[in-house]
């Protein structure tokens, strides 16, 4: 594909034609804020935060869905752009609980980050707010609708695995919500707790329940590891605090890596000093289970024990 040269905030950059403005900007170190954009997901242009001004275009354009052309001149920080972004952030904050003090996502939340950058604050008002619906049914995922900004990343990432496609939009307009299947709880739904949605959620609407209360993101030391369960080799992070591994969390499922519960539990079991109780979904109910069963190695262990190839002194949490 032919290359084109564009000018972004008076910096010139040459990229292949067909590149989106947001990616071209990244190349010259300009970060355009975006809540719904993810290079691994279908472009939807929903959050409108990445609006930029393009010379010759009367309307503001979203950098995530506008392709560069040769000679394009882009302004990502003009007054008009900044004002639009501030207004959009304000609209989001007006409908978002002021819970940053105790929110698990604090420190990593994109809404928090941009609100700080653009100096937009929570404010009192008597208008409507998203209902405070919280789905606590899953031992793995906490879904807090009141914090959802409806970027739809969770829906898109869930849809990428053909046999999952659990999450979807329901209702419309201001009442739009993300639901599992036909508005079931995560427990009742066909959710397999792969946590893809958790990894892409930019705010605290979908969080890994096993991380709750374990520490703040800035306290962790983070090590990356690859899952050893199958050939995909999905990426996980081992979070340690005060020299102790306290949690394992999935990294975003890029390059076709699907993520799965078994892989995450296995990684947890391998790395955590004190792995938490595993749960298994059976007939739409989460049940406490043994590690042998959770990792699907009952047969192997029995056979190994039969053959007396493992020493009798081994202790495992099962």
């Amino acid at each position, binding site marked *: 594909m032919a290359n084109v040269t564009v000018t972004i905030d008076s910096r010139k950059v040459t990229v292949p034609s067909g590149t989106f403005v947001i990616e071209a900007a990244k190349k010259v170190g300009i970060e355009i804020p975006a809540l719904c954009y993810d290079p691994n997901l279908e472009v939807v242009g929903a959050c409108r935060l990445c609006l930029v001004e393009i010379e010759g275009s009367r*309307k503001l354009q979203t950098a995530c*869905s506008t392709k560069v052309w040769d000679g394009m001149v882009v302004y990502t920080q003009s007054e008009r752009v900044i004002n639009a972004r501030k*207004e*959009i952030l304000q*609209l989001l904050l007006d409908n978002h609980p002021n819970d940053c003090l105790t929110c698990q996502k604090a420190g990593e939340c994109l809404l928090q980050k941009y609100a700080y950058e653009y100096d937009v604050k929570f404010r009192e008002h008597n208008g*409507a707010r998203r209902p405070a619906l919280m789905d606590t049914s899953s031992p793995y995922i906490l879904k807090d609708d009141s914090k959802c900004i409806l970027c739809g990343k969770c829906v898109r990432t869930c849809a990428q695995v053909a046999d999952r496609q659990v999450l979807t939009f329901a209702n419309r*307009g*201001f009442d739009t919500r993300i639901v599992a299947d036909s508005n079931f709880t995560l427990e009742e739904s066909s959710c397999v707790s792969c946590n893809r949605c958790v990894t892409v959620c930019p705010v605290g609407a979908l969080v890994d329940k096993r991380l709750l209360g374990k520490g703040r993101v800035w306290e962790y030391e983070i090590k990356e590891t690859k899952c050893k369960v199958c050939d995909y080799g999905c990426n996980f992070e081992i979070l340690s605090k005060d020299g102790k591994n306290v949690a394992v969390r999935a990294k975003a499922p890029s390059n076709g890596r699907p993520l799965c519960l078994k892989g995450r539990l296995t990684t947890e079991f391998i790395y955590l000093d004190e792995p938490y109780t595993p749960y298994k979904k059976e007939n739409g109910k989460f049940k406490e289970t043994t590690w042998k069963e959770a990792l699907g190695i009952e047969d192997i262990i029995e056979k190994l024990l039969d053959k007396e190839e493992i020493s009798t002194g081994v202790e495992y949490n099962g």
Partner: protein
Amino acid sequence: MKTVKELNNIKEKVLERIELRKREQKDISLDSRNMQEGMTHVLVYGGTGCHSSNSHKIIELLEEKVKENGLDEHIKISLTGCFGLCAAGPNIVIYPEGIFYSHVKLEDVDEIVEEHFKNGRIVERLLYEEAKAEDCIKPVNEVNFYKKQTRIALKNCGVINPEDIDEYIACDGYQALAKVITEMTQQEVIDVMKDSNLRGRGGAGFPTGRKWETAFKYDADKKYVICNADEGDPGAFMDRSILEGDPHSVLEGMAICGYAIGADQGYIYVRAEYPIAVQRLQIAINQAKEKGLLGKNILGTDFSFDIELRLGAGAFVCGEGTALMESIEGRRGMPRPKIERTAHKGLWGKPTIINNVETFANVGQIILKGADWFKSIGTEDSPGTKVFALGGKVNHTGLVEVPMGATLRDIVFDIGGGIPNGRKYKAVQTGGPSGGCIPAEYLDTPVDFASLAKIGSIMGSGGIIVLDETDCMVDIARFYLDFTVAESCGKCVPCREGTKRMLEILERITNGEGTPEDLDRLESLAETITSASLCGLGQTAANPVISTLKYFREEYEAHVYEKRCPAGACQALLQYFITDKCIGCTKCARNCPVSAISGKVKERHVIDTETCIKCGACMEACPVGAIIKK
């Protein structure tokens, strides 16, 4: 059928049958009321309006009675589409004379059969009011409402039976399709369309020919034609009437488009809330397929084109082109960002032409009569005609088709008959929730794409709502915002969150709780929603607020600063009073549900405004009009 000759044979044969509907109509003098001898056609209008007031039962009863009286040899009863004067329905026109009966009830059928059909005397009391002139009876075409119209898209509505393809063929139907597929190249068709400068009638006004050319020039293994029949503006029913009254004209337009761009498949996305349109479209598609005018190798040529219906589930946003495509593809109807043009990558990623019902209904005529003929009607910038659904505070609500450039005055006063109850004209709202309010001072503005945009409104799909002095402009803005909030798909932040906040402010203002800051906030929200929303619906959602703030700011200010509604429409800001006209009949006190009225018999009564819930029951009950609200 395999040849154009066969098509022409049907045309000639059937034209003979229905020719009497197209004869020139003359005034009927009062002293010779005897009907002409020979065939009589009784056309009963069967659009949704007339249908809902039992026109289908009137047809059945007429047929039954005519047969009973042995008149069925020369009196034919026929269904036809909407002829426009909805306010007067159910309507019946009797040809060849063009006698126009309105407000016909089932009980009137006997009299029509007895007096008109048997005795040859016009039933004067059923005549449409304006048809009764001093010394004669005016035929339907001479009635002001119709006389001032120019009918292209509606030319067959009210003339042919929409469920009979032969009658469409008799009125030059499928001649244009025959012409393009046997005599013209794809480029020639596109050139005619471009030359005609037919602009999209769905609202945005994009030149149709240019759109088609974009899809024509894009190479792909498959292309699609979509007819957008997801008409959803409150008070708009142009497309519905065309689909109900002349469905074949839309099918023919789509097939011509299919030929021009190289598509073999078309979809009509029509809302399920239009059951009659859906039914007649299906009948039309079936008949066209039976006759070989749709399907494989049309008229023996290499051109194949099929059309299927897709029913919308009632989401306004699905009238937006990309949301409509998502819906056809089986997904939730939410607009896509326009990374590529839909003429390049549309339905299932293939080049797709999406045009509105009325746009397609114009195509056949343009091909047959030529671009120059089309350009001779309307204005240079906006040639042709536009169909409008005229509603609100106007005498003749209904459907009208006028040349582009006709003024609002022509439409509201000449055709629409002005404002009822002697009230004062205040404004018109055009373009539905995406449009704006145009105040009285612009009554002489020509209605075309550019002129309306200049004064802060849009042509839109063609809804015109007339407002009088009792309409509060803040409340009108609130009404449209309420609609937009309910219909926002929820995808993008400015529309989902912003319109809701705007509505909350408008509700505050109409409740008398608005503050001066609210007006500033409205303006800044309007700016954000307009410039930052994803799709056309969001980008135009603030228009009702912007235009009313521009032209009627003093009304907003009266609500905010004086807690007063100048139009007397906002209930929360009104108080009911009993004037000294009161005769002390006690009716008001007896009708008040909250016992807020006190007074002795034959003495002036008083309303306790603290207790009053402003229901208006007293005002209705008062026999002397002594109760006022202010």
